[in-house]
């Protein structure tokens, strides 16, 4: 049984692929630049999928495999929620659910100098930005945006953090606003932080609001827009009785 190669690039787009599926055959496409995103790798002339997911394509030449998993692969400029596991003189070691622990330099804060180094206990939840991800090195984080301002990054106090998949995080961060967040926002007042690494933080004045929001978000991964709105309505009805 030989390999089934899609000679025309359009045949597997928006289809589910599994590891080993050849999605593009480069020998048929000369003089083209192709950008490979996550989930694809090159084996001589064949581009194969290495994850199970949906093959996506945007013009002019970007291909990638979209999938949802519990672990996270760090990419620069991602905003993630990390947990401090150790602090050294130069860096904090932060767990971001990736293949390696990440480093947060003690000076990577707005107005950070050697005199005002923050003290984070082990277990502190931080909203951080991924700065560098070189292969073989631990990823580097920062609590400032690209221009050096705090922009909301830093420790998250109180509230409740739960873990989900990377797919749900991406959905909650998509624009226009995801239906479940819209529906919840109409009736309840709460604060959230979403990490692309599958961690979500919710904070509100009353604990019952935190629980409602957390449950609604956890249930919404596989629901369509209408189903999400119905689910939130039913949840709020039950609570108001």
């Amino acid at each position, binding site marked *: *049984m030989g390999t089934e190669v899609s000679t025309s690039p359009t045949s597997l787009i928006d289809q589910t692929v599994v*590891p080993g599926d050849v999605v593009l055959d480069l020998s048929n496409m000369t003089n083209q630049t192709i950008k490979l995103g996550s989930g694809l790798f090159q084996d001589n002339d064949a581009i194969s999928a290495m994850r199970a997911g949906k093959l996506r394509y945007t013009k002019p030449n970007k291909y990638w495999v979209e999938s949802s998993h519990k672990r996270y692969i760090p990419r620069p400029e991602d905003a993630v929620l990390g947990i401090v596991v150790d602090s050294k003189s130069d860096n904090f070691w932060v767990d971001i659910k990736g293949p*390696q622990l990440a480093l947060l330099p003690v000076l990577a804060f707005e107005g950070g100098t050697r005199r005002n180094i923050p003290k984070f206990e082990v277990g502190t939840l931080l909203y951080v930005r991924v700065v560098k991800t070189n292969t*073989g090195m631990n990823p580097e984080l920062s609590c400032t945006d690209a221009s050096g301002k705090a922009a909301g990054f830093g420790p998250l106090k109180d509230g409740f953090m739960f873990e989900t998949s990377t797919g749900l995080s991406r959905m909650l961060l998509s624009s226009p606003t995801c239906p479940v967040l819209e529906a919840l926002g109409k009736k309840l007042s709460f604060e959230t932080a979403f990490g692309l690494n599958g961690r979500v933080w919710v904070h509100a004045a009353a604990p019952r609001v935190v629980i409602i929001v957390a449950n609604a978000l956890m249930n919404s991964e596989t629901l369509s827009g209408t189903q999400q709105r119905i689910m939130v309505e039913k949840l709020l009805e039950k609570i108001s009785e």
Partner: protein
Amino acid sequence: MEYVNPEGLRLDGRRFNEMRQIVAEVGVVSKADGSAVFEMGNTKVIAAVYGPREIQNKSLQKKNDHALVLCEYSMAQFSTGDRRRQKFDRRSTELSLVIRQTMEACILTELLPHSQIDIFLQVLQADGGTRSACINAATLALADAGIPMRDLAVSCSAGYLNSTPLLDLNYVEDSAGGADVTVGILPKLDKVTLLQMDAKLPMETFETVFALASEGCKAIAERIREVLQENTKQLEYRRAA
């Protein structure tokens, strides 16, 4: 004893080239990053994958720029007819090594340097072909965890009794004293990653039995692809338009 009757039926009513029923399910262990249950007839195996995560024991790391793959195979004490005395014996150590080598060949370890991938395999019911079921379950669990793989590793066994090659031996046929050939292949790349045999076979007979096992592997690969595609469709998150 007659393992194949004159009409060509085996002890459980199968023909020589019929496999046992396959049942597979993904995402069964909620704590694990990836998990799967794989059943071949009465043989039932559960696989749980943790990773890629930070290396726990640096002394185990042999190849610096590759992920460390650890595998543990164990049989539950209730998995066989008579309650097993020890969970870990020489056979378990050998199978752990063999399965680790098979999966390591399939995982793109160079993409995740300085990280660790743990594969735990537990046999819940043993009725022959446990190592094949374990490899198939591990492939599903690794795909569920989103660990990059070059192809799906699939495995099947075949034997030779009453002068007939037989596909997918169960425990009774396996203990009959004939040869038992276990084959592990990467179907799209058409490469063999595992080949084990106990007892002896003449070369021509071996080639027939090997070809039969490979056919069985291809059928299992189809089934595994279906299960992964089903699972991916269910997990699909809604993209903003």
